[in-house]
């Protein structure tokens, strides 16, 4: 979920709590600082305006009357956002698999090239399998696919332990391939053509 939503909603709710407390004091004819109450009102109005803007950004055609309808809308928007997020993860795995397929391994020893190609194939299969799985796929750490191998070959312990841990745990074949691959062994076919 996008962090902006909960913070905006929480801001609105918090300011409304303070305002409601002040109104309760007024209702009980208790002494209140009216300037402070007006500030609370302004803060709440500002939070409401922000939340409305977020809703309208996701669903420009959305219409609601009360908080219940707003909550329904927000739930719908959250679903949309979640689906979009899964699709993005999936597309990223497939894009990296395609990137692995596209490159070439260069080494002075043929046995080693064969061995690395086998590892590459296994990683590619793993990525496609992950993308094809139902539900939410695993989140692949690192940058976009075209820069991913460079980034992954540069990971080193202990600085990048977290990313390496995720990689090792969720994408074992990909991690195996990246661990055997040296940066100078990977050549993109496009470059060879050039």
């Amino acid at each position, binding site marked *: 979920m996008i962090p902006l939503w909960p913070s905006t909603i929480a801001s*609105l*709710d918090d*300011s*409304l709590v303070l*305002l*409601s407390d002040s*109104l*309760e004091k*007024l*209702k*009980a*004819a*208790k*002494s*209140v600082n*009216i300037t402070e*109450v*007006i500030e609370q*009102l*302004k803060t*709440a*109005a500002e*939070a*409401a*305006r922000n*939340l*409305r803007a977020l*809703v309208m950004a996701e669903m420009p055609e959305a219409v*609601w*009357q*009360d*908080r219940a*309808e*707003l909550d329904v809308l927000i739930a719908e928007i959250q679903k949309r956002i979640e689906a979009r997020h899964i699709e993005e993860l999936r597309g990223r795995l497939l894009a990296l698999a395609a990137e692995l397929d596209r490159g070439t391994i260069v080494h002075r020893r043929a046995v080693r090239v064969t061995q690395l190609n086998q590892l590459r194939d296994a990683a590619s299969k793993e990525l496609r399998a992950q993308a094809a799985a139902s539900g939410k796929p695993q989140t692949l750490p690192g940058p976009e696919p075209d820069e991913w191998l460079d980034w992954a070959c540069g990971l080193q312990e202990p600085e990048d332990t977290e990313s390496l841990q995720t990689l090792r745990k969720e994408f074992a074949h990909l991690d195996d391939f990246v661990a055997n691959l040296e940066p100078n062994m990977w050549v993109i076919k496009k470059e060879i053509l050039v």
Partner: protein
Amino acid sequence: MSSIWPSALGSLDDALALPYETVGKLKAANPINIEEVTQQLKDAAECGNKLRASIAAELPDASWQNREELRAVIAKIQELEEARRIEGLRSRLLAVATELERGSITHRRAARLTELNQLREQAIKELLAQGGVEGAPPTLPGPEADQWIEWACGLQEPEDSDSLQILRHTFPQLDDFITNLEPDMWKPDVPPEAASQNAAEAEERKRVLEQRRSRLLALATELERGSVVHHRVLRVNELNYLRDQAIKELRSQAKLPSGPRTLPGPEADQWIEWACGLREPQDAEALQTLRKGFARLDDFIANLEPNMWKPAGSPPAGPPDPGNGKPAEKPRQEPPAPEIKAKVFEEPVPSQPIPINLKGAKPTAGRDKPQVQLSRDGSAAPELAVEPVTPPSRPAPSRSNEEIQRMQAREREALARIKGAVTEPVRSFDHRIGRGPSSKSPAGAGAAPAVAKERVEAKATAATITATATATAVAEPVKAVATPLTVARTTPVRVMADDEEKTPSVTAKASSAISSARTTLSDTWTEFVSDVRDGGIGAIWQGKWRLPVIGVTVLVLALVTLGVVYWVHRARASNNPVKAAETSGVVASGPASNPQPATSTDTAAAASGLKPSADKQAKPKDQPKDQNAAAKPPDAPPSQPVTPAPALDASLRLPAPVPKANPPVGTKEIAKDEPAAPNGAVGVAGTVPGGTPGGPPSSVINVVKDLSAAQPRAGTQKVSVSSGVAQGLLVHRVAPQYPPQAKSARLQGTVVLQAVIGKDGSVHSVRALKGNPVLAQAAMDAVKQWRYRPYALNGEPVEADTEISVTFSPHD
């Protein structure tokens, strides 16, 4: 339930409706009109404040946290209000019952009266019963109890059907009584205790006022009955005038409808003695009261000395006047009040005709003193050309009546002498030169005062008598003027103002006398020249011109002798530096170069004060004319020491400072008691007549020495400077610390300190003159740390005494 609480709560809820609605909208992130909601919030807060104030008024110690507790508090207040309302109803019923009980019914028929009283009793019982029931008693319509019966008797149908219905159904016995009662039958009664209390208070007030009134009248009578005694008639008249004003004031005060003011002091018979003994500041309060409430009386008392007042019944003020045997003062008979004005100037006076013309006297400012013609025996008093100037003066307290009488006689004699001296010289002279009184004097010349006549006869022995008489004629009025004027210096200013207005008139009369004498002298000279022309020089040694010529010759010789003596004195003085300086009014040391404390005028005055003794010692009959011989010390005793000029005066007249390289010779030598210089060129002892070499310094030297000693020395002097000057010298100021206890107690004010600023500018000693002690200590602590530029006198720093004000204010 009282209507205030629901309406107050309703208003609050109404004001809060929109904010609550707004919260719902905001919760749904819906847009709102924020200005409108803000206004509603303010309204709600205002309603809350009012409601809170109402609750605090009913239950000051009430507290609550939420709306439910607020409702509980309001319910409690409503219960209290209800209880109070019930109590009010009950007390109203009881009050009407009491009112019925206290009043009385009048009627011409006893049976009817009895009947009405029975009805009243039943009504009272009914009211008491209704008032004693549990719960809320029925509401009795109508006004408060003290007006209720009158109101009820005025009820009529159909206008007051509602009230009558309620009365008939709820209070049938009361209604029955009221129906039978006519308004004029009912006599409401005043509470006996209140009535008696009011009557007692009124009686007491009346008694006090009457007492004050009678006290004022008694004093007025006392003032009227007594008499004023003074050796000057004018003063007696003035005091009598003041007395009458005071009497009038007292009587008018006594007539005030609002009651007279309280006169301080004892009873009337001792009052004047008491009042004359009042003095400030001991009796400031009584004097203030007197001054504010009885201004005229105060004026009289201020002018009256104790020995000037003779109360009624005391013996006559003095022995009978030798002129006609009448007493100088006779006790006043108590006159009736309306005659005061006519008796103002009827105070007994010496019966001898004393022509006192006050025509020129103007009323004193602030008073309505009338212009009066004081001629006691009417036409018998001859008109005087000169108005006697006899300003009011306070007699010495110890003067006896005889002394006063003598003074009065002397005064009368002086007045007569003035007249005689002015009118008689010509006639006396004519008589002496042989014309005789019958030749030129009128037959009635004896009408001139005998005293003046004798005086002129005794003096008119030569032609110069004219000048003598003229001088006497001038001198006597001037003396007559001068004496009272000298006395008048001690009298109040307003009295002097009167006298000064009279003085020019006297001077004019004196001028007239001089002019008359001059004419006489001119006539005499013409006659003398004619005789010489007719009889020759030898004729002047014979006959009437012999004595005048001898007199003139003696006079001329005397003048010549005096001139020679003066010339010799001057010549000697010019050869003597000290003497020369003395003569010219300058001390030997020289005024320009000597920082003498006194000015040259002062020194000359001091020197001139020495001259008589110096002349006596330096000019014996056998004194050699040699100038050097004058320097020899004679055996005469040293001259009188001269009192040096006061140091304060000297400090005020400081000349320019003297350069140290050239100190004043005379001052230096004398100060060191060195022997006199042989040549006598400087102002030392040997050069001064009467000085003794090696002995005590002469008077002049004393003057120089003393004046030198009196000279202020800047290095040791402490001067007083004003706070403004000191403020200008302040270079470092430490702010006083406001004492915490003073601040918490909100103590504030100004502290005045007296401080001595040392030569180094530091504050040497400080003491508080005025102000709160707590603040004063803080101020002194601060001022002790202040630094000033040293105050310089003649370029040298001196200690300066000044006052410093430090103000403490909690707002600072």
